[in-house]
C-alpha cells in the first residue's frame, strides 16, 4: 500500500506563522522542531549550569554554608535530571536528529511529523514542572537515580513530580526513537543503500533501538516506585518485604544504555564533522557501523557494573566486568578511526574542529577511567566517590557537550546562512577546555582519596583541590558568555556563508542554506559517497 503526503499537511503549513514565531508553534517541519529542541535544551542547560555553579560554590568550603543540606540535595538532583533528560538527551538526539536525518535519508520530513511535534512539546511542560517542584515543597532529593528507600522516605511531592516529569520525558524520547527508526529504515530515498548513509544515521539508528528497548523499562520501574510512594505498596521497600536491588537492576537496565543514548549520537556527529574539516574520507566506515551496533548490543548487557557494591553475587560480577571491558573494543575502534581520519588530512583549525578534537581527548580519558571502573576491586574502592563524578563528566560533558558545541559551529551556517565568528569561537573553546579539565581532572584525585559524592560537606583536607575544581567550574560558566555573544552577533550581522561554506559532501549541504521548507527544490540528490573527499567527485563540487 502506498500513501501520498496528505494535502492537509501543506494547508496547515501555510497557515502556520512565519519568521521566528513558527518556533513557538506546533510546527510539523522537522527543521523547526530540531531548532525548538536545541533552543529549549539550551535554556535548560543554562538552568542546569546555574545549579552546577551553586554546587561548586557550596563545595568551595568544607562546611555547608552556602545552602542548607537538604537544599543542596535538591540542587544536586535537579542538576542531574535537567542535564540528562532536558539538555543532553533531547539535544543530541532530538535537535540534531530531527534537523539532519531527513536530509541524510533524502526525505522531505520525518516519517511521523505529528508524532514528532508531540514528542517535542512534551518537553517544555515537563521541564517546567520539574523546575517548579523546587518552589512547591522542595524538589526531589534522592539524586537522579532516585534509589529507594531514600526516594520513598524523602518529602513526597517533589519526588512524585520528578517521577511524572521523567515519565513524560521518557515518553517523548520513545516517540522520537520510533520516528527515527521508521525514518531511517523506511523513508530512504529510492536507490540509497543503508551502507551509503552518513554515520550519524547509523548512530541514531543504534541510539533509537536503545531508546525503544530500554526506556519503557524505566517507565515501568518509576510507575512501581510511585505506587510505593503514593499507595504504600512494598515493591522496593524492605520494611514491607520489598527488594531495593530489584529497583537498581531495573533502573540501570535503562540508565546504562542511557549513557550510550547520550554518547552514540555524539559519535555520529563527530564522524560527520572530522572528514569535512580534514578533507579526508571517514576512515573505516564499515568498522564504524559494526562498532555502533556492537555497542548497542553490549550496552544492553552491562548494567550491573553500577551495582558491584549492592551485594551482587560473584558470577554476576565476573560476567558484567568482562562484558563492560569488551565495550572498550568497539569504542576503541571508533577512536582509532577518528584519529586515522585526521591523519595526513588537510586540517582546518576552526571552532568546530577544535571542539571535535577536544572531544576526542576528553573522551579517551573518560573511556580509560571507565574501563578502570569496570574492574570490581577498583570499583569497590572508588564507588560513590568523586572519581565516578569525574568519570561521567568526562563522558557526558567532555564528550557529548563538546560535540554539541562543535556541531553548533559546524551547522550554524546551514541553519542561518551566516558564519559564526571564529575568533569568539576559539576563545569559547579555550576557556571551555581549560575550565572543564581544571574542574574535573582534580576530582579523580579527590575520589581516589575517598571524598564521597552527593554530600554537601567534606573533610577539610580536600579544600584546596575542591577550590581548584570550583575555579574550573567558574571558567566553564564564563565560557558560555563568548558563545552567547557569538550566536547573537552572528545571527544579527554574521558574514554570509553561501550554501556550502565547508565544501562538504553530505546531503544537507547540497541544498540552499537555510534550506527551503521541504528541503529540496527538486528531487532529493542521491549521495552515494558522503565522505568522498580527495577523489575526483569532490573536484566537481
Amino acid at each position, binding site marked *: *500500500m*502506498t*500513501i*501520498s*503526503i496528505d494535502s492537509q499537511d501543506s494547508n496547515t503549513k501555510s497557515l502556520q506563522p512565519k519568521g521566528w514565531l513558527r518556533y513557538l508553534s506546533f510546527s510539523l517541519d522537522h527543521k523547526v522542531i530540531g531548532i525548538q529542541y536545541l533552543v529549549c535544551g539550551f535554556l535548560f542547560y543554562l538552568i542546569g549550569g546555574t545549579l552546577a555553579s551553586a554546587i561548586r560554590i557550596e563545595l568551595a568550603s568544607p562546611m555547608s554554608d552556602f545552602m542548607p543540606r537538604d537544599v543542596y540535595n535538591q540542587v544536586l538532583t535537579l542538576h542531574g535530571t535537567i542535564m540528562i533528560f532536558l539538555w543532553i538527551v533531547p539535544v543530541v538526539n532530538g535537535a540534531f536528529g530531527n534537523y539532519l536525518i531527513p536530509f541524510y535519508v*533524502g*526525505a*522531505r520530513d520525518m*516519517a*511521523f511529523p505529528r*508524532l514528532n511535534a508531540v514528542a517535542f512539546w512534551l518537553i517544555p511542560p515537563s521541564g517546567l514542572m520539574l523546575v517548579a517542584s523546587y518552589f512547591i515543597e522542595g524538589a526531589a532529593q534522592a539524586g537522579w537515580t532516585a534509589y529507594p528507600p531514600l526516594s520513598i522516605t524523602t518529602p513526597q511531592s517533589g519526588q512524585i513530580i520528578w517521577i511524572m516529569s521523567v515519565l513524560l520525558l521518557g515518553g517523548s524520547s*520513545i516517540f522520537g*526513537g*520510533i*520516528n527515527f*527508526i*521508521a525514518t531511517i*529504515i*523506511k*523513508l530512504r*530515498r*529510492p536507490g540509497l543503500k543503508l551502507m551509503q548513509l552518513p554515520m550519524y544515521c547509523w548512530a541514531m539508528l543504534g541510539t533509537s533501538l536503545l531508546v*525503544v*528497548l*530500554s*526506556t*519503557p*523499562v524505566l*517507565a*515501568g*520501574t518509576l*510507575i*512501581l516506585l510511585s*505506587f510505593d510512594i503514593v*499507595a*504504600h*505498596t*512494598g*515493591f522496593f521497600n524492605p520494611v*514491607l*518485604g*520489598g*527488594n531495593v536491588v*530489584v529497583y537498581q*537492576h*531495573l533502573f540501570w*537496565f535503562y540508565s546504562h544504555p542511557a549513557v550510550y543514548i547520550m554518547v552514540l549520537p555524539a559519535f555520529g556527529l563527530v564522524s560527520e564533522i572530522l572528514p569535512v574539516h580534514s578533507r579526508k574520507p571517514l576512515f573505516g566506515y564499515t568498522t564504524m557501523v559494526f562498532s555502533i551496533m556492537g555497542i548497542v548490543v553490549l550496552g544492553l548487557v552491562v548494567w550491573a557494573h553500577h551495582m558491584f557494591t549492592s551485594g551482587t553475587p560473584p558470577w554476576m560480577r565476573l560476567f558484567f566486568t568482562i562484558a563492560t571491558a569488551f565495550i572498550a573494543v568497539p569504542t576503541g575502534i571508533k577512536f582509532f578511526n577518528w584519529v586515522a581520519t585526521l591523519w595526513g588530512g588537510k586540517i582546518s583549525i576552526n571552532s568546530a574542529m577544535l571542539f571535535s578534537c577536544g572531544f576526542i581527548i576528553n573522551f579517551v580519558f573518560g573511556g580509560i577511567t571507565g574501563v578502570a571502573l569496570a574492574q570490581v576491586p577498583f570499583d569497590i574502592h572508588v564507588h560513590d566517590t568523586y572519581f565516578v563524578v569525574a568519570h561521567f563528566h568526562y563522558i557526558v560533558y567532555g564528550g557529548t557537550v563538546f560535540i554539541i558545541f562543535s556541531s553548533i559551529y559546524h551547522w550554524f551556517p546551514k541553519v542561518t546562512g551566516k558564519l559564526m565568528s571564529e575568533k569568539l569561537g576559539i576563545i569559547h573553546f579555550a576557556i571551555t577546555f581549560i575550565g572543564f579539565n581544571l574542574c574535573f581532572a582534580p576530582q579523580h584525585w579527590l575520589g581516589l582519596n575517598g571524598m564521597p559524592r552527593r554530600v554537601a560537606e567534606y573533610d577539610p583536607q580536600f579544600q584546596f583541590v575542591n577550590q581548584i575544581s570550583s575555579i574550573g567550574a567558574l571558567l566553564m560558566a564564563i565560557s558560555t558568555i563568548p558563545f552567547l555573544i557569538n550566536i547573537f552577533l552572528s545571527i544579527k550581522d554574521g558574514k554570509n556563508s553561501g550554501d556550502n561554506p565547508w565544501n562538504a559532501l553530505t546531503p544537507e549541504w547540497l541544498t540552499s542554506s537555510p534550506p527551503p521548507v521541504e528541503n*529540496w527544490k*527538486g*528531487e*532529493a540528490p542521491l549521495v552515494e559517497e558522503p565522505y568522498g573527499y580527495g577523489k575526483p567527485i569532490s573536484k566537481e563540487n
Partner: protein
Amino acid sequence: MTTLDSSKEIKKDNNDVSEHHEDFRIFGLITFLVADGMTFAGFFAAYLTYKAVNPLPDGAIYELELPIPTLNTILLLISSATFHKAGKSLQKNKNSDSQKWLIVTATLGIAFLICQIFEYFNLPFGLTDNLFASTFYALTGFHGLHVTLGTLMILIISWQTRSKGGRITNQNMFPLEAVELYWHFVDGIWVILFIILYLL
C-alpha cells in the same frame, strides 16, 4: 486494496518520486509495541526475581485460583479470532459483517474485564498486603488497562466500519489493522502473564 492510492500515484509519479513512499504506519506501531512489550518484560523480570529471592513472609496470604483466569484466557483467544474474522470480512467489502464481528470482539473484551474485576473482589489479599499481592495487582492491572484501551478502540472502529458514512472501508483498512495488531499483542501478553503468574 490500493486502487485509490495507486491511481493517485500514477498521476504524480512523473513529477517527483519522493512524494510517495510505502505505508510505514504499521511499522511504527510495531516499534511502539516492542517498547510496550519491554515495559511488561520489566514487570515480569521484577516478579520472577521476587519469586526467586524474596520469600513470602509468615502468615501472608498469596493464593490464586485457576478457573477465572483460564476462562479469561479462552475469552481473549476467541476475541483474537473474532477480530481476525472482522478484518477478513472487511477485505471482502462486507462492512456490516465486519462490524458485527468487531462488536463480538468488544463484548468479549468487556466480559474479560468483568471477570477480572470479579476475580479482584474475590481474592483473599489486597494491593498492599504483601509484595506478591502488589506485584500481582500491578501486572494484571497494567494489562487490564491495555484491555480497557483496546476495547474502547474496538468500539470506536466498529462505529467507523458502519456501512453508511463510516470512515473505515476496505480502501482504508489501517485503523482496523492497527487495532487488530494491538489486540493480538495484548492477547499474547496475557498468555505470557497467565503462564508466569498463575501456572509457574
